[in-house]
């Protein structure tokens, strides 16, 4: 039994952390935030070079053949850096849609292109196939992956869709409304159990968003902790006041078990099918709640500076808010967990 990241996972995390530290400064964040597409072509190229888009693509299609746990490790770092990169939808959900729900011929046609970073997917759920509200990662996609209520998955080229991008409260990722009018679509063939495949894709997305929140919350916590260790008022470092210290004790007591929870849920997507759905739903819900508390308390610890645009802490605050609402907020996820366990109809 070893409940820990492997040596390879830690090395991979180190490379990604290093890349993000070089490429995603607060100045770069501000520059790209104005555009609001959630896409930075230069950063994307470096991520492609690192092999990030092929993370979940099986090796025979040119990817790294890794699992949701590896994706969660990456997502934690992307959230920590508030990086402009289509990941949860484009890299994780779209790849898994092909891996778990497409014919060999379709996999052959698409997965190598995903791994090479040539295609990027906005992902959304549609009631009737005509439109999607709030598609994820659809700021600058080449294609859209659309799920219908019965689990049917469609791929449409972005140029055949009419897209209306909203800059979201989280300037690092937009939300996009999409309309289709007689658009040509490729139907992914998940011959056995399309609904289960859709849930699997959706749950992986939820775990990855929870991991993104974990990274963003950890970043805010670390910033706040560093701040209260150097800010002086009443001739004392404010981190020596018990009220402040106890708030940090509360934060770390909430936040630290979340890392193990994210690892567990991510590992369950890969290896524990009986626990996969429940842990994904509960992890998405729990990180949504803890993330909000950490975001609020870490901002508060900074005093007035925390409220300014100058410090830029709000980018992470808003990233956490975005993650909370996307792919089902805590109440929705818990209610789905209740249905899953037969606790409610």
């Amino acid at each position, binding site marked *: 039994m070893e*409940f820990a990241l492997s040596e390879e996972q830690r090395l991979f995390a180190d490379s990604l952390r290093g890349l993000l530290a070089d490429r995603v400064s607060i100045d770069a964040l501000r520059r790209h935030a104005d555009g609001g597409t959630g896409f930075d072509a230069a950063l994307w190229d470096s991520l492609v070079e690192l092999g990030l888009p092929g993370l979940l693509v099986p090796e025979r299609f040119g990817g790294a053949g890794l699992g949701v746990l590896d994706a969660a490790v990456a997502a934690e770092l992307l959230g920590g850096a508030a990086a402009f990169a289509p990941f949860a939808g484009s890299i994780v959900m779209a790849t898994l849609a092909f891996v778990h729900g497409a014919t060999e011929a379709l996999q052959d046609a698409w997965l190598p292109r995903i791994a090479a970073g040539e295609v990027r997917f906005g992902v959304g759920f549609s009631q009737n196939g005509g439109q999607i509200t709030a598609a994820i990662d659809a700021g600058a996609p080449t294609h859209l992956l659309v799920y219908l209520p019965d689990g049917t998955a469609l791929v449409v080229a972005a140029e055949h869709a009419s897209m209306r991008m909203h800059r979201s409260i989280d300037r690092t990722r937009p939300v996009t409304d999409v309309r289709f009018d007689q658009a040509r679509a490729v139907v992914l063939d998940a011959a056995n159990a399309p609904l289960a495949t859709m849930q699997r894709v959706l749950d992986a997305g939820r775990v990855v968003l929870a991991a993104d929140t974990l990274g963003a919350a950890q970043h805010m916590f670390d910033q706040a902790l560093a701040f209260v260790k150097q800010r002086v008022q009443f001739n*004392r470092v404010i981190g*020596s006041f018990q009220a402040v*210290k106890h708030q940090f004790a509360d934060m770390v007591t909430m936040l630290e078990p979340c890392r193990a929870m994210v*690892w567990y849920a991510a590992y369950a997507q890969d290896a524990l099918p009986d626990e996969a759905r*429940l842990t994904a739903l509960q992890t998405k819900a729990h990180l949504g709640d803890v993330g909000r508390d950490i975001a609020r308390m870490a901002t508060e610890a900074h005093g007035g500076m925390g409220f300014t645009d100058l410090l830029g802490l709000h980018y992470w605050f808003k990233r956490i808010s975005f993650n909370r609402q996307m792919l089902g907020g805590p109440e929705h996820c818990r*209610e789905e967990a209740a249905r899953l366990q037969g606790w409610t109809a």
Partner: protein
Amino acid sequence: MDLSLSDKHLSLQEEVRGFIREHGHESPKLGGGRKRPDRKALDWQKLLVDHGYVARTIPREYGGYGAEPDVMEAAVIAAEFAGAGIYAGLTNQGISMLVPTLLEVGTETQKQQWIEQTIRGDVIWCQGYSEPGAGSDLASLTTRGVLQDGHFVINGQKIWTSSAHYADMMFLLCRTEPDQPKHDGISYLLLSMQTPGIEVRPLRTMTGRAEFNEVFFTDVRVPEDQIVLGRGKGWYVANVTLKHERSMIGSAEKMTTRLEQLITLMKERGLLGMAEYRDRLLKLQGEVIAWKAHNLRLLTEAAQGVDSGVKRMIIKYGGTMLGFRLASLAIDALGTDGLPFESAGEDAEDDDATTWNIDYLYDVGLMIGGGSNNIQKNIISERGLDLPREPKVARV
């Protein structure tokens, strides 16, 4: 990441399962622990010691099983006993605190004299630490020990002393060096509860039970050689002991069991149809999933010999709060049926409502005992997060 057991641990699991099949019927029932272990509990304890299911890593020369430390083995054993609802052995302060402390800092004579008898349940200990005026600020304790004719003569009072009413022995902190700074003036003594001059008065708590005692000392004479590590070293020894106490509270298995009981209760009472009850239960389920995963992480780090730092320090605070929230929902689920409260006594099995109420009330005690949660938050922030200590207030 690998949640499967190694061959070594699988074969231990098989062995424990075999033991439970063969001997499970001899186990005393779960719970209790507030009274002196009876014959059945003592026989069971000795059987467990002989098989290495308790005191597994205690060296053979002190009556243990002499296994190499392996936290995964301990986890496998604990899981099998918990899963089968079988009593996993005595959990008292002698076994969990005094024995590890003696192993670390005791003399050879002390180890020979006390460890075997303690782990087999033949000697029961109580802990003489807290005083009416020395709770969180334990080092300000004032019970005196004055050396006269080869004996420390003890005068003073202790409080919150669990099991003092039936214990054979006490490990005691008292002030033997009044001229030294407060932390350096304390010694750690071992004494028989039969020594003349000791008076034990039961202290009833809000659970209605006498879980604690007050202990009064009037000219109690303790032989000079019953000191651990030496004069003025008591604070250091006590910290060795407290380290062991803090790691034993807040286990994930207890949370899992309690959550499952809570789910059953809420189903039986038809409350899952009410959205607010259901959402509270679901939130707690999420927290328990996180807590279990966190414990797996700690277990792995312990097996690797890694110091988990702040991740370990949050266990007592986080665990007692989570336990209380679970019990609170059960009380709310019971509604007015949770109000009748008639404990059948310490030996008998209570009805569900009383059992939940006792957990609910007792958890409040757990938040206070062994370093209250406000003290835990100081520890987490100062030692775990490296925030500055409170400035010392001038003595008034």
